[in-house]
């Protein structure tokens, strides 16, 4: 897709989603879920910058989600700054925190990096739960209900988050940085020979990814109005991001968006009907995708597209 076509499609989609709740008869519940899903999409996209573009699978993104959420919450609680500034500051703190552990560990490749991120994630969770002056410890933090956007309004803020994440995803993939990243993904040493500085590139991506996920954490804090470390920093939260990206198509520009949709639909649908099966369903889905379509939904669509082309030619 050319850049102009992409941007036009992007603007159209954004505009359509912007007015949708105002003209369509969407229930409050669906409205809120969609808003929250926008946030998950943005976070999954951000995970994908590191996990997909660079091929560094992080099992520790909950650490940045949590840091972003708690810094944002602390700022909202202690100062009169508007929530959007608090989100941004939380995001920046999360990005810096990401750099703090990421700079040394990004030298590790493949499973070594993944294992290191598990360590980072768990250590952060434990310290955060202990550090009650900052996180409220095991009792968590409650945000004031006044001054925070309502869940109704958060739909649009979620949409902006998503828009930003999509633009960055597209920009990263189509830019020179993107080329460098795929070179690093292929072969770090060769990338170094090509004049790509793997350390710098990976640091930049992790910072961006961490900042975006941190902002998402701030959004989540506003959405829930109550956050506690065990939930914010949980291993399952990191896993959720991975699942969304993998279901949608790891390394593709928009895959995580579709992945997040499927993730939420499964959760909402199964919640009402077969809640005792949802773990297994994710598991089975993961297994099927890895075995049969490593590019997830995106790969499936591409495959169908390839099948469809000859048909079109014949007619």
């Amino acid at each position, binding site marked *: 897709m050319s850049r102009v076509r992409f*941007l036009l499609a992007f603007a159209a989609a954004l505009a359509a989603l912007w007015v949708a709740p105002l003209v369509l008869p969407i229930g409050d*519940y669906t409205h809120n879920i969609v808003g929250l899903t926008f946030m998950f999409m943005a976070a999954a996209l951000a995970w994908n910058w590191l996990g997909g573009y660079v091929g560094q699978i992080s099992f520790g993104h909950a650490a940045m989600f949590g840091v972003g959420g708690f810094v944002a919450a602390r700022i909202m609680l202690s100062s009169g700054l508007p929530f959007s500034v608090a989100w941004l500051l939380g995001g920046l703190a999360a990005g810096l925190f990401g750099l703090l552990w990421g700079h040394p560990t990004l030298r590790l490749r493949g499973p070594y990096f993944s294992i290191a991120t598990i360590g980072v994630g768990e250590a952060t969770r*434990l310290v955060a739960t202990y550090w009650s002056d900052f996180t409220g410890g095991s009792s968590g933090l409650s945000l004031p*209900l006044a001054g925070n956007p*309502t869940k109704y309004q958060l739909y*649009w803020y979620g949409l902006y988050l998503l828009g930003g994440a999509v633009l960055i995803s597209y920009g990263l993939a189509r830019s020179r940085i993107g080329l460098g990243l795929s070179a690093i993904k292929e072969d770090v040493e060769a990338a170094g020979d090509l004049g790509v500085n793997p350390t710098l590139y990976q640091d930049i991506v992790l910072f961006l990814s961490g900042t975006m996920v941190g902002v998402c954490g701030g959004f989540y804090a506003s959405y829930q*109005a109550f956050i506690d470390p065990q939930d914010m920093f949980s291993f399952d939260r990191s896993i959720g991001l991975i699942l969304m990206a993998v279901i949608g198509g790891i390394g593709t520009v928009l895959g995580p968006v579709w992945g997040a949709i499927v993730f939420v639909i499964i959760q909402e649908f199964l*919640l009402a009907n077969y809640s005792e099966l949802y773990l297994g369903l994710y598991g089975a889905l993961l297994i099927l995708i890895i075995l049969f379509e490593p590019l997830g939904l995106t790969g499936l669509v591409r495959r169908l597209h390839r099948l469809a082309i000859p048909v079109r030619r014949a007619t």
Partner: protein
Amino acid sequence: MNRSTVFVGVTVLLLTGCVPSKDTDDDSANTAIPDKIVIGSTLPLTGTESKTGGRFKQGYELAVEVENADGGIDLGGKKVPVQLNLLDDTTDQAKAVNLAQRLITQDKVNFFLGTYSTAVVEAQSTVAEQNQIPYVNGGGAATSIYAKGFKWVFGTLAPVANLANTEMQWIDQQQAAGALPKPARVAIVWENTSHGKDFRKGVQDFTAAHSSGYQVVTDESFALDGKDFSAILSKVRGAKADLLMIDAHLPDFITMQRQYLSSAMCTKVLTYGARGTESDARTALGAEGVNYILSAVWWNKQLGNAGLNKEFVDKFKAKYGTDPEWYQALGYEAARSLFTAIAQAGTVDKEQVRAKLSALTMDSILPGGKLSYPADKGGQADYPFVVQQNLPDGTSPIIYPADVANGKGVAPNPACKG
């Protein structure tokens, strides 16, 4: 950067900060008598907490059944049946919040019964407060839930600090009787959860108020699902504690008690908070292994010899064929208090029911015999716990408070040598 990029960028910038808002459509003023009263609720029916979730469900459903048995709640002379709209939140905070949002804003339930486990209740209660709907729960005990000045949230569980406090009161009696040393050396070991935190606060408050009788020598928290407690136990041993006051959930209780026993420790008094009387504990540790453990719970079926308690236990047995535990009792009482407030209000108007809940004082199966949601406690019920002790004959009688006791406690632990 070409022109279209600039165009899109500017559009996005213009849109940002521009967010529609909506007046919350206020239908709480609707005072017409409905055909039925719909109560929304979520509970963890699958996942790790499914066992407890299932017990609360039994309590809620029994209360609804009892209420509907004679036609429902009396709203100004008209009996209106109650319908429970219960969903599974799998102990996930976001799910509990979203489902509550759905039940309240989309399914338009009239009132809400809360879920189980403190953190989830804490997250979910904000939805109730935002949407101004009465929220009664029997599954969230942390004082932090009720310390936020919420007007719409009511808790049937007395704070865990009361648990520690009631146990300490019994211990104080024993000390006064000369059975325990004075001052007694106290070790507090608590899981780092809000449950453990409140437990610790209960012990600390008591020892601070009776500083001549108690000296805290160890105060440590631990992470859930520990594999080895030898270091903590060694600290306790080193501090020569007389009273070992632990708060732990079941897996840690079992691991820790096994290590406590096999390391030949023996403190004059030992408690694991609410743990110790359950059948799982006896299975895991043997009858010997749980002897003389002190425990306290919100309710116990041994209270059920007469009056409301007997009625509850009999109806429960008739419906489910087993004995109720505190979970079911608390679920039952939470639901019953809500029904009582609705009946008193005589309407489904949310504000009026909230006011009645706030002012409620009703006869209850809970220790103390009365249930209310005092405003100065942020809407959290406040009553003593029932203290039990496992005895070598396999029973666990209530030993405190005196008015409900059906057995006599033993201190110091006679199994300790020397």
